[in-house]
């Protein structure tokens, strides 16, 4: 069972929900796919850390073989290659690693070399396997890191995926492996707009989903109204409480620290498991 936890915007509680679901499940895997700002590890403080590098292939040119035919320059949709004066110039950071240029080069002047774009950290914390993707600053795409993270997943354990914010390509890549999507929503008009975007995304990808209303208050909740209007199941509610805010601010796992939160997230876990099994 793979559960993706997502929200249209940052700061709605993706990490809170995914970390605590994994903690409530115990023998499980937590995968931090928010590679630009991974923070689940701050809560889990995983031990026995192992780190390995993630790299992508980018072209390099042998100037003695290159004749300046410009087949590669014309081919590259991302304009990562230019013919400048009398030599080929390569913008490695714009390359999407499709490999087309080196396949098409009639002179065999282009070969691929590996360029590091980030790393994966793996460790464990009270029975939870913690996998963290880290993208190097300035890199355009974290998708290769997500793909490497998913190679680590085995079928026999429940997996909780902390998704990147937004609804761009990297979120689609992350959601693609999920059996079920938990959409975390905050009670603001801005939050509802972004909730609508991720909900649409899960529908396009054919993924079943349910909403966790986070930071709920006594007054009317625009996110709840949206769910009712669209017929989206509400699978959990987390009230806006100082105690939870404090635990979070100290990077403590609420489900491990207080009985009421252990119960709250265990209950949510049962609901999610039931929904995921259809």
């Amino acid at each position, binding site marked *: 069972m793979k559960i993706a936890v997502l929200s249209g915007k940052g700061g709605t509680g993706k990490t809170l929900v995914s970390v605590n679901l994994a903690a409530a499940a115990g023998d499980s895997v937590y995968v931090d796919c928010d590679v630009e700002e991974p923070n689940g590890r701050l809560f889990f403080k995983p031990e026995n850390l192992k780190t390995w590098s993630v790299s992508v292939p980018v072209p390099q040119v042998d100037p003695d073989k290159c004749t300046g035919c410009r087949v590669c320059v014309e081919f590259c949709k*991302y*304009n990562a290659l*230019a013919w*400048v*004066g009398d030599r080929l110039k390569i913008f490695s950071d714009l390359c999407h690693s499709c490999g087309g240029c080196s396949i098409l080069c009639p002179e065999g002047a282009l070969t691929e070399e590996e360029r590091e774009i980030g790393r994966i950290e793996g460790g464990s914390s009270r029975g939870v396997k913690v996998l963290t993707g880290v993208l190097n600053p300035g890199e355009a795409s974290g998708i290769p890191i997500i793909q490497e993270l998913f190679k680590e997943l085995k079928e026999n354990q429940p997996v909780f995926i902390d998704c*990147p914010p937004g609804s761009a390509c990297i979120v689609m890549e992350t959601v693609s492996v999920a059996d079920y999507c938990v959409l975390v929503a905050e009670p603001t008009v801005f939050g509802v707009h972004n909730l609508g975007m991720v909900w649409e995304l899960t529908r396009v990808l054919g993924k079943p989903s349910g909403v966790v209303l986070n930071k709920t208050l006594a007054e009317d909740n625009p996110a709840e109204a949206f769910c009712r209007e669209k017929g989206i199941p509400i699978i959990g509610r987390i009230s806006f409480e100082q105690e939870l805010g404090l635990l979070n601010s100290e990077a403590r796992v609420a489900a491990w620290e207080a009985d009421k939160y252990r119960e709250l997230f265990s209950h949510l876990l049962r609901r999610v498991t039931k929904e995921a099994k259809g």
Partner: protein
Amino acid sequence: MRVAMPIEGQSLESAICQSFGRSPYYLFYDTEESFGDYKENSAPASLGGAGIKAAQLILDEKADVLLTPRCGENAAQVLREGGVRIYKTEGDSVRSNLEAFKAGRLEELREIQPGRHDHRG
């Protein structure tokens, strides 16, 4: 000398385009012949690296200088390594900037926009 400029239309009366890489057209003006020709820019439809593609066109058209209000880092690298000098335009009139350039009144472009402008992820 062949002078390149990003412009909005195909006439000397057109305004200078505020974006270099995604300009709809470029003017290539021969200062000796006092004659300009126009090239359509295919770079705006690019998935990324529009500035690089546009700079490639400027090099391929054998321009000596580029007059532009702005220029990105990647495009500037291609242009400079290709031997094209970059000057900063003032206002949006093509004619007055050509005159100012010929009279030596335009300054070289110093502020280069950093990084890429494409969508992340």
